């Protein structure tokens, strides 16, 4: 196996709030608050959590679009914070992204061929002829016809646009693709198209994915391991199938209980969480989940549980298990 492709260690991103010209900073939103995980080459890590839990900030940090407050992101053994100039360019070439909404992520003024060619022209010195043939190959790889490169994005359906976004992400031989809710905006039948395409591409090119979504069934289907995030922290990391079979953390249990049944008679453990996700500006003391947790103990409001291994490859941050 060797070392992982991407290693995130104790990553934090705190945003200041209320800082004005005269007044000082009034508080910090701890959007990402000390998370650690790894992604191996050719592996998919799923990241689930509700809105505001820090999934998107995590993806921005990995894409080098935001600078971390503290902690480290290591890619192929090198620390992202130390990369400069050409090396940083090279990092950006190898780490690409596909966004949720293919209607706003593709420029309406560019031809599809130019959209896919742009990263190639930015990162590599290649002839126009070569660029054109690479674009044609990429279009075929994502199941579109090469002659479609002359068209504009508005001539494509949602699912086709998402294929274009995937082709663009693959255009520079990326090693890691951050998929930020890639199927949430698509119709049911088209979701299956995109999920199968992503799996097929991974099997062929051994690219790694960080698959961010809130649909547990889709995440568990695509990823080998799944990490569950709540208020800026990881609460559970486990093999996807194991996680589905026996979620340990009460929040993971609640997420599974809240995911919709696949048929009308499916028996579900009913855990309906009270309240809503608290503000990240003022997270609760101790375990940040304790005000909503059905299994809360006195200890939970005082001491914060650490993410520790309960069985090989399985980490949980909950006092119930340590």
């Amino acid at each position, binding site marked *: 196996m060797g070392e992982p492709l991407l290693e995130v260690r104790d990553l934090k991103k705190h945003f200041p709030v209320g800082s004005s010209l005269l007044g000082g900073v009034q508080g910090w939103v701890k959007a990402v608050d000390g998370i650690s995980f790894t992604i191996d080459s050719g592996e998919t890590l799923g990241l689930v959590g509700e809105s505001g839990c820090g999934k998107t900030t995590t993806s921005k940090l990995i894409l080098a679009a935001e600078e971390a407050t503290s902690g480290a992101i290591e890619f192929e053994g090198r620390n992202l914070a130390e990369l400069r100039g050409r090396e940083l360019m090279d990092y950006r070439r190898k780490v690409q992204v596909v966004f949720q909404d293919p209607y706003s992520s593709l420029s309406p003024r560019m031809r599809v061929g130019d959209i896919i060619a742009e990263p190639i022209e930015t990162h590599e010195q290649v002839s126009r002829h070569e660029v054109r043939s690479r674009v044609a190959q990429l279009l075929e790889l994502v199941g579109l016809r090469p002659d479609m490169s002359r068209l504009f994005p508005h001539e494509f359906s949602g699912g086709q646009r998402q294929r274009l976004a995937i082709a663009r992400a693959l255009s520079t031989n990326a090693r890691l693709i951050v998929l930020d809710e890639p199927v949430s905006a698509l119709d049911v039948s088209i979701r299956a198209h995109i999920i199968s395409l992503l799996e097929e591409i991974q099997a062929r090119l051994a690219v790694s994915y960080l698959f961010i979504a809130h649909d547990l069934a889709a995440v568990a289907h695509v990823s080998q391991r799944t990490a569950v995030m709540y208020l800026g922290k990881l609460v559970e990391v486990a093999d996807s199938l194991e996680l589905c079979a026996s979620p340990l953390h009460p929040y993971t249990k609640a997420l599974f209980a809240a995911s919709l049944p696949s048929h009308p008679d499916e028996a579900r453990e009913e855990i309906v*969480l009270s309240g809503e996700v608290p503000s990240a500006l003022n997270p609760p003391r101790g375990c940040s989940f304790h005000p909503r947790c059905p299994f809360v103990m006195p200890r939970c409001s005082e001491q914060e549980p650490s993410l520790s291994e309960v069985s090989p490859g399985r980490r949980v941050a909950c006092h119930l298990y340590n």
Partner: protein
Amino acid sequence: MPPLLRVDDLRAYYFGFRGTRVVKAIDGVSFSVEAGETFGLVGESGCGKTSTCHAIVRLLPPSARIVSGRIELEGEDLLGKSQTEMRQIRGRRIATILQDPMASLDPLFSIYDQVAEPAYYHRAFRGRRLRQRVKELLSAVRIPSPERRMKDLPHQMSGGMRQRIVGAIALAGGPQVIIADEPTTNLDVTIQLQYLNLLKDLQRASGVALIFVTHNLGIVAKMCDKVGVMYAGKIVEMQSVRGLFYNPRHPYTRALLDSIPKLGTKDPLYVIPGQPPDLSRLPAGCSFQPRCQSAMERCRVEEPSEQHLDDAATTRCWLPLHEATTRG
């Protein structure tokens, strides 16, 4: 006794480019809902589910026209009503909950004003009784400390709370039917579950009929008693929710069920070939035929009529009939 709400062979077309382009958004849709029942209308974008909802409350855009069919509320024909008469029905007897709560709430009016409006106009509540009614409605949709929160404006509420307020507005007129058009699409999973449970509880308490429009089969499994699957403006299959999941009759239903990931398995997903059709250029014969695995010669020529099957199920497919004859 006639059913609470009955839609019979409804057709509504959009006319574009001075009538040269006709989009058959609703093309012969029939269903009925009884009090206390939940009817699910499932389908992908552009299949005509939202148009059907708008047609029931007679709020289709000017480019669309109801061409034929009947919509009856307790046996009363809604299509013959004037818009003035419809205003006495919308909000009072048929209420709607739309997808985006921020778009259905007015940002400039307090929660109190917006929840009070239907109760004021349709149920003639005034003064202290109106205030009491609003408080009850807000507690019914589980807004904490309603007395204090009703002075707030919509932007001061979270997404889940806003959608619950829209629910309170829908209930304020004391309707017999609530049409919910993808009400939980913008909500997080745990908030979605809270909301769906809330709707079920409210339905149990008030006996209101629910028409639930969604593309999410999981929501159907959880919420609905009866389901109609829409494709290209037609209900291609209609049956009880159990029947739909255990014995889907139409190939499109079967394909949809096989294309969603099941929790805890990695079985490859079924991929429905092709794209959803363009409603202004439908293929000959059955609309689903170009994407159908079991398409036969007949499907390409003749459009399947509605087949009534044994257990009160209906489907628009030549196949079940064909299977029945070859097996028998």
